[in-house]
């Protein structure tokens, strides 16, 4: 995946060809039938071969997508490497830092710790899907207003988590916010400003 052309898109023929060619020759010999037809078969009652591209339907930031992925592709790698939604960050890649936080069916999760194929039929929202066109989401505005970041690397995860924190009703006090934002690490130490941003949004009472 790391060697794929930068201009490739999920529906680009050249990319698909590239992926096929890059598959190990020995592995290719084991694939039952053409890769593409396998990808269209129903997965529920059969086993997908390890080297097979598995079909996957997702709604990402409101857009319905029909994709095919290798089973071991994490949701994070799918978003970044295949869909080029690079707002979601890879920090630790082990569920410890929260930089990869996205919403799956409205719930915040670590996208690095689950396989994309496990989310078939789900709705994914990333930081790119939060704003309404050019109008920033209230939480994004609050992070800007309160300087809720320095280097910015953890910020997409912080904001996705912060939106969920308010929606869940866990932004009642500074202590509660700190507890329910504990899955998002900021090594610059912008915590106090992040808490201020969340309190501002909570007090504003706007729909998030």
């Amino acid at each position, binding site marked *: 995946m790391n060697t794929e052309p930068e201009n490739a898109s999920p529906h680009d023929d050249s990319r698909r060809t590239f992926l096929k060619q890059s598959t190990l020759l020995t592995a290719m010999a084991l694939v039952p039938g053409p890769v593409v037809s396998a990808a269209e078969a129903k*997965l*529920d*009652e*059969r*086993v*997908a*071969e*390890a*080297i097979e591209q*598995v079909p996957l339907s997702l709604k990402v930031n409101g857009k319905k997508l029909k994709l095919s992925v*290798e*089973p*071991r592709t*994490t949701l994070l790698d799918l978003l970044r490497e295949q869909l080029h939604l690079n707002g979601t960050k890879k920090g630790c*890649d*082990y*569920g410890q830092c*929260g930089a990869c*936080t996205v919403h799956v069916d409205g*719930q*915040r*999760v*670590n996208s690095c*710790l*689950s*396989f994309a*194929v*496990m989310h*078939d039929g789900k709705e994914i929202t990333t930081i790119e899907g939060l704003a309404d066109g050019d109008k920033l989401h209230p939480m994004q505005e609050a992070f800007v207003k309160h300087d809720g970041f320095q280097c910015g690397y953890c910020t997409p995860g912080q904001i996705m*988590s912060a939106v*969920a*924190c308010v929606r*869940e009703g*866990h932004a009642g006090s500074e202590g509660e916010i*700190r*507890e*329910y934002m*504990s*899955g*998002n690490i900021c090594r610059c130490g912008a915590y106090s400003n992040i808490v201020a941003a969340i309190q501002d949004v909570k007090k504003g009472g706007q729909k998030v």
Partner: protein
Amino acid sequence: MNQFQYSRPTKQQAAIDAVAKDPNAAFIAGGTNLVDLMKRGVTSPQKLVDINRLPLGKIESQNNGLRIGALALNSAVAEDRQVREKQPLLALALNAGASPQLRNMATVGGNMLQRTRCAYFYDTTMPCNKRQPGTGCGALEGVNRMHAIFGFSDKCIAVHPSDMSVALVALDAVVQVSGPKGNRSIPFADFHRLPGDTPEKDTNLTPGELITAVDVPDGPFTKHVHYQKVRERASYAFALLSVAAALDIDGSNIIKAARLAMGGVAHKPWRLTTAEQMLVGKPATEETFRQAADVAMQGAKSFKYNAYKLKLGPNAIVQALKTAAAA
């Protein structure tokens, strides 16, 4: 990460069959521990059976208790109205574990099945009898600050990290499993194992057995409960040590029933039944709690770097019981 076959059965029997017949197959639910272990090469199943399409996520009242489906999310259980009313200790323990994001992914069954582990288990360049039987234990003479003080063997001194399981063992939960040979019930205290000579086995499940639910019997522990977790930062860290405490106290401040268990001290959640028995019939005072703590710690033994647990343990037990009594 290794490549693997993937299937997503919609029938429970199909899932069980797929894992039972293949020693290199594994169930996957939330994936929060398994994916982590696979990324580090600690475990590398050749086939993953995704059980998320099985209808095992319900939380329902039945037969004088709650039946919590194996696929119920940790966050959903912690927020569930019935759980909060009937088993507040369980909700407290769940919310003390992991992060909000992980609790939105991790299931009840998966939480129980997260590996008993330590840093040597995760480091594939180190010996570890749990990861690779027969290679030795790196922690025994190594950096064993986080390790066990009860029930360990010279093969393994790792601890089980689940907070939820500490509450469930205290509450006399029963694990419902379904396997190739049918269904069976396992008392929670018998679900996890001590390391003995086979530290590679964390639980008493047999190949292909699938957790379907956890039953938590109704009890008097709806008010005086506390989950005391001691860790190195305010939140989102494994316990150095934790205590689940539940008391039933009458109008004269006499303890009618008590439950006590510890986490972070053994290869499995550690129930303290002798201390519980000692508490019953006594006044709910700090003096009583201190006596119970002394009883609870009998037999504890430390290693080079975890001797602090011998002092932290009884103090945490007293604090948990005091807080529970005042709740």
